[in-house]
């Protein structure tokens, strides 16, 4: 017990330190400008956006666990709804902090809060993110306060609808960019929704495994089996969506050079896509989940960690690779200029970007660790009854 108490404070201090390092990076970027980041006028969104978008998408997806419980009435999932909601709030907080602090003028956050351009999907997202935050807090309240229990179903339904709209909004950020080859596809919002299912559930699995270990409990194998199968289905679903996105692109003649760049010739991008996303982030987890003799706690934990890793790889390829490919301003012409026209843009992320990204993860970690310690988020399973 003494050891655990000690470990808790050490973990908290470590999380706090990483978050502080993120704030230090923000201070440096504020002082010197974004010149100290690896971002430039060709790659305007970099590593911080990879972290932020992963956290926000996973924050929406992790609520799937809650929805299956509250909306579809599955008892096993209902017992996990409070933990899922907590993770959602924590990751949303971490992701939004990174997104906000990466702005050129984070001090003008009041300007963003008070001037709304209703044609901007970014402005919609300000509403969607803050609404999600409040809704999930209310949802948690209806679960944890006995007198509020009657409103739980309604709150669960509201969260269910809201998070679909929210992830649609995140996908639309890119879907509305008609000018760029990598984006501007109506497939992106549904693709982000399915990706959110896989990433959110993977994060949930990791946290759940740690909490069970910490409390020296073992997860009922029947429950583990159901949840790992669900993860497998989500991973397959997301792989299908990503494949469809690339296949449709390859079908359009004017998109082929972009696809060849991302999937074959683009150096780090095809490598990260095939090895990072497809092999490590999909095939290996699927094997760990579905191969006979696999699928035990440790395999599911490894599979979940790999799905998360694959998510980061995919977002790196999608966000940075998508910007690195030159804008086709004059199709059919060879183009050159002093501003990188017709050339593959280069990007070398700086330490400050990573500090900011990990700072966001640390914020999510600290919120989760403290909350799990002071409130009861441990899933309380009834003796197992098949739904």
């Amino acid at each position: 017990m003494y050891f655990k108490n000690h470990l808790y404070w050490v973990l908290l201090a470590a999380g706090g330190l990483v978050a502080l390092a993120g704030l230090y990076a923000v201070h440096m970027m504020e002082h010197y400008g974004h010149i100290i980041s690896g971002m430039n006028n060709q790659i305007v969104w970099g590593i911080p956006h990879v972290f932020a978008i992963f956290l926000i998408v996973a924050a929406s997806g992790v609520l799937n666990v809650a929805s299956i419980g509250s909306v579809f009435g599955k008892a096993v999932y209902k017992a996990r709804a409070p933990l899922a909601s907590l993770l959602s709030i924590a990751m949303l907080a971490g992701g939004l902090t990174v997104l906000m602090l990466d702005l050129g003028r984070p001090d003008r956050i009041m300007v963003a809060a008070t001037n709304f351009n209703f044609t901007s999907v970014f402005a919609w997202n300000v509403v969607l993110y803050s609404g999600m935050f409040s809704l999930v807090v209310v949802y948690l309240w209806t679960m944890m306060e006995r007198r509020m229990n009657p409103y739980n179903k309604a709150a669960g339904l509201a969260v269910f609808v809201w998070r679909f709209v929210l992830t649609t909004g995140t996908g639309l950020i890119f879907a509305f960019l008609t000018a760029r080859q990598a984006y501007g596809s109506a497939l992106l919002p549904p693709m982000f929704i399915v990706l959110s299912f896989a990433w959110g559930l993977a994060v949930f699995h990791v946290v759940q495994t740690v909490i069970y270990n910490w409390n020296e409990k073992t997860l009922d194998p029947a429950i583990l089996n159901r949840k790992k199968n669900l993860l497998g289905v989500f991973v397959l679903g997301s792989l299908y969506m990503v494949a469809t996105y690339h296949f449709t692109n390859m079908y359009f003649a004017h998109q082929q050079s972009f696809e060849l760049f991302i999937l074959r010739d683009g150096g780090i991008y095809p490598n990260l896509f095939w090895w990072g996303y497809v092999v490590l982030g999909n095939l290996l987890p699927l094997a760990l989940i579905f191969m006979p003799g696999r699928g035990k706690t440790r395999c599911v934990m490894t599979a979940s960690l790999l799905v998360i890793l694959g998510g980061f790889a995919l977002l790196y390829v999608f966000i940075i690779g998508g910007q690195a490919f030159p804008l086709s301003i004059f199709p059919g012409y060879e183009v050159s200029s002093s501003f990188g026209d017709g050339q593959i843009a280069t990007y070398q992320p700086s330490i400050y970007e990573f500090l900011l990204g990990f700072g966001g993860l640390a914020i999510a970690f600290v919120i989760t660790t403290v909350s799990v310690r002071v409130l009861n988020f441990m899933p309380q399973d009834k003796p197992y009854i098949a739904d």
Partner: protein
Amino acid sequence: MNDIDLTRRNFLKTSMGAAAVAVAPGMLLFQVAHGKSEGASSKVRWGMLVDTTQCKTGCNDCVTACNKENGLSGGTLPTDSQWIRKIEIKDISNGRELSLPMMCQHCEHPPCVDVCPTNASMKRADGIVLVDKHRCIGCRYCIMACPYKARSFVHEPLTDQNPDVPRGKGTVESCTLCVHRIDQGLKPACSEACPNKAILFGDLNDANSEIAQKLRSVATTQVRAELGLNTGIRYQGL
């Protein structure tokens, strides 16, 4: 009863007089500070016609003039701002080569304005697309949305700015069509500097203007016309 009413009436009169005396000089100063109160007119649409047949490879005079006018460093690192750049293009099928200046195309339906969360990106009534430096939060979504790569983000602190052209670290900027010169009745710096008169500036809406007449008589192109943005900058000979 009457006495009391009179006292109140006098009090009100005196207070209103005092208020008028207090406010009037302020109002007067406000007017002086803001100069002409009339804004840009929507009857005008400023634009340019670039004659690529007159634009010479290797000539950079428009770029130099723009940098000087707007206080840009002229650096060409990926983190430096470039409001106007020369692009060399070569037709892959027949080898024909052209050189042309590329800058903000001052679209009628600018994607940068659509995506800006805070309305910092805006289009003036006379068609000039600008960034309000006091509202821009530096999210760079407009850079992602611009089909012409016309925008730059200020990556470093700035010194020695031109007072007519405010800029700021952490905000996005692009060609203003030299709005400060237009408001004084002058042409944009690039148009004035071009030795071959390849950049013709004028009001697209005025049927008698040189640019409108030329647009009627020669074949011109809008870059990425398929996006339907109706650009204010047109190209001839492309």
